[in-house]
C-alpha cells in the first residue's frame, strides 16, 4: 500500500508538466521539411556560439525566424536534434561521425572518422541519415582538437610534437572534458598512439579558461584545446604538433533535422558561408569573443557584413 502510494505520488509529481518525449524521434521517412521557425543549437563554447549566430543571421536573412538554445553536452543536444526540438546545430565532421558511430554501434566500435574529409563525410552521412539528420556540405573551416603545454615546460623537455612528449616518458595530467577518457582522440589515443603517460584527466572542459589556467599554474601539464584557440599566448601555452595524425579532419558542418530544416532553402542559406569562412576567421572571431569579450552576435554580424553575406 505504501509502495503503491509512493508510486502514485511520484507519477503525479512527474506528470505535472508535459513535453515531447525524446523517444519520439523525428520521422525518418518523412520528406524534407521546411519549418519557418528554426531553433539553432549551440554547444555552449565560444566557437559553437559564433557558428550558431552565423547560421541564425544567415537564416534570418533568408526569411526564417530563429531562436537559439545553448545545450552544453552533445549527449543532451543530439537527441533533441533528432526529435526536432533543435533544428540546426554546428558540428565537426569527424567528431560527430565517431560520436554517432559509438552511439549506434557501441563504445567499442571501430572509429569511422579519419583525416580524409571525403571518407569522413560518407561515414557521417551514412550514420546520420537513419536518425533523420541531414549533414550539409562542409566548408573550408576546420577545427581540430589540439594539445598544448606550457612554453617553458616544452623548452625544458625539448618538446615540439606529441611524439616527443610520448618519448620523454613524462607523467602528465590532462585538463580536458570529462568525456576525454572515452574519446579515441583524447586520453585513449594519447596513450596508445603516442605512448604518453597520462596519469589522469582533470575534468575542466575543453579549452576552458580553468583548464588553461590549471596548466599555466602547473596543476596539470597538458590541456586539450583546439586549433582555433587564439588565447594560448596569453596563458603562456604552446601547441604540440599532432605528428602521427591522431586528430581527424574536423571540418565545420551544419547538421539539420531533415523533417524540419531539410529544405533547399536552409542548405542554400547556410551554404553561403562555406566558401568564405576559414579556420583563421574562426580563430579571429574566437579571440574577439574570448579575449575582447565582444558579443558573439555582434562579432558574427560584423563578419557577415564584412564578407558581403549580410546586408
Amino acid at each position, binding site marked *: 500500500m505504501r509502495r503503491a502510494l509512493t508510486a502514485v505520488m*511520484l507519477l503525479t509529481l512527474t506528470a505535472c508538466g508535459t513535453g515531447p518525449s525524446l523517444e519520439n524521434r523525428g520521422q525518418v521517412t518523412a520528406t524534407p521539411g521546411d519549418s519557418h521557425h528554426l531553433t539553432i543549437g549551440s554547444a555552449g563554447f565560444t566557437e559553437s556560439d559564433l557558428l550558431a549566430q552565423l547560421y541564425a543571421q544567415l537564416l534570418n536573412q533568408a526569411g526564417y525566424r530563429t531562436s537559439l538554445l545553448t545545450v552544453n553536452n552533445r549527449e543532451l543536444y543530439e537527441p533533441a536534434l533528432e526529435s526536432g526540438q533543435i533544428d540546426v546545430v554546428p558540428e565537426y565532421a569527424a567528431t560527430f561521425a565517431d560520436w554517432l558511430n559509438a552511439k549506434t554501434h557501441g563504445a567499442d566500435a571501430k572509429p569511422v572518422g579519419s583525416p580524409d574529409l571525403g571518407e569522413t563525410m560518407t561515414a557521417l552521412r551514412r550514420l546520420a541519415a537513419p536518425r533523420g539528420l541531414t549533414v550539409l556540405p562542409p566548408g573550408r573551416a576546420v577545427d581540430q582538437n589540439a594539445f598544448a603545454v606550457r612554453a617553458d615546460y616544452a623548452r625544458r623537455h625539448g618538446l615540439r610534437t606529441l611524439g616527443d612528449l610520448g618519448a620523454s616518458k613524462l607523467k602528465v595530467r590532462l585538463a580536458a572534458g570529462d568525456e576525454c577518457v572515452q574519446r579515441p582522440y583524447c586520453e585513449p589515443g594519447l596513450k596508445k598512439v603516442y605512448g604518453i603517460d597520462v596519469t589522469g584527466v582533470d575534468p575542466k572542459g575543453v579549452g576552458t579558461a580553468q583548464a588553461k589556467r590549471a596548466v599555466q599554474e602547473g596543476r596539470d601539464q597538458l590541456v586539450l584545446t583546439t586549433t582555433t584557440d587564439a588565447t594560448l599566448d596569453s596563458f603562456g601555452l604552446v601547441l604540440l604538433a599532432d605528428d602521427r595524425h591522431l586528430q581527424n579532419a574536423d571540418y565545420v558542418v551544419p547538421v539539420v533535422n531533415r523533417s524540419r530544416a531539410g529544405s533547399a532553402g536552409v542548405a542554400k542559406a547556410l551554404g553561403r558561408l562555406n566558401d568564405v569562412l576559414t579556420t583563421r576567421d574562426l580563430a579571429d572571431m574566437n579571440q574577439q569573443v574570448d579575449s575582447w569579450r565582444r558579443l558573439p552576435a555582434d562579432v558574427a554580424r560584423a563578419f557577415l557584413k564584412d564578407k558581403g553575406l549580410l546586408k
Partner: protein
Amino acid sequence: MTAPPDDCLARNEWICGAYLSTRRRILLDAVVQHLQLTVLSVLIGLAVALPLAVLARRWGWTAGPVLAVTTVLYTIPSLAMFSLLLPLYGLSATLVVAGLVLYSLTLLVRNILAGLRAVPEDTRQAARGLGYGPVRLLLTVELPLALPAAMAGLRIATVSAVSLVTVGAIVGFGGLGNLIYAGMNTYFKAQVLTASVLCVLIAVAADLLLLGVQWLITPWTRAGRTRMPSGRGRPRGSRARDVSTTEAGGA
C-alpha cells in the same frame, strides 16, 4: 589582426560599465527567465506540498513515507535530477521547473506539516465543539495557525530555488545561470560578478517580499499574541478576524 580595443571588457575588469550597457537586453532577459522559473516552481511546489502536508497530518501513517520520499528527492544531485527528468520533458523550461518543484517539496512539506502539528489540541477541540466540520476546521483554524511555520518554509524554498535555477544552464534554461556558466568558461569577470550579484539581489528581494506578505496575512502575530484565538466564536471573514478576536478576548 587589428589591435584589441582598450576598454574594461577587453581588460576583463570585475566591474565594467560597458558590460552593463552592451548586455542590458541580455541581462534583462536572463533576470526575467530567472524570476519566471523561480516563481513557477515555487507556486507549483506549494500546490503539491500543501495537499501532501494535509494528507500527512490527517492520516498519521502517511507522514513517514511522504517525508521520506520528499527528502530522498532532495538528495538527488541536480545534474542527475535533470538527466532523469530529461526523457519526460525534453530540453525545456518545464524540465527545470519540474526539477525545482521536486527539490522544494521537502522544505515545504516539512514546514507546513510542522505548522499543522503545532496547532494546539484544545484549539481544535474548541472549534469542533462549536460545530466546525473538518474542512472548515482546516481552512479557518489549522491553516491560519500553521502560516508562520509554512511561510518560513516557503521563504527557504524560494531562496534555494533562486540559487538552484542556475543549474538549469546545463539545458539552456538557467536564467542568470546561463550567463554565470558561460562567463566561467571564458573567465569573463564582469559577467560572472554581475550575474551573481543579480542572483543574490533576487534572492534577498524575494525573501523580503515573502516576509512582507507574512506580516500582512498574519496580523494576529503582531498583536502580542502567540496564539490566534480563532474558533472561539462567530463565523467571520478573514478581514474581520482581528477585530472580532479582540472582542472575543475581551468578553
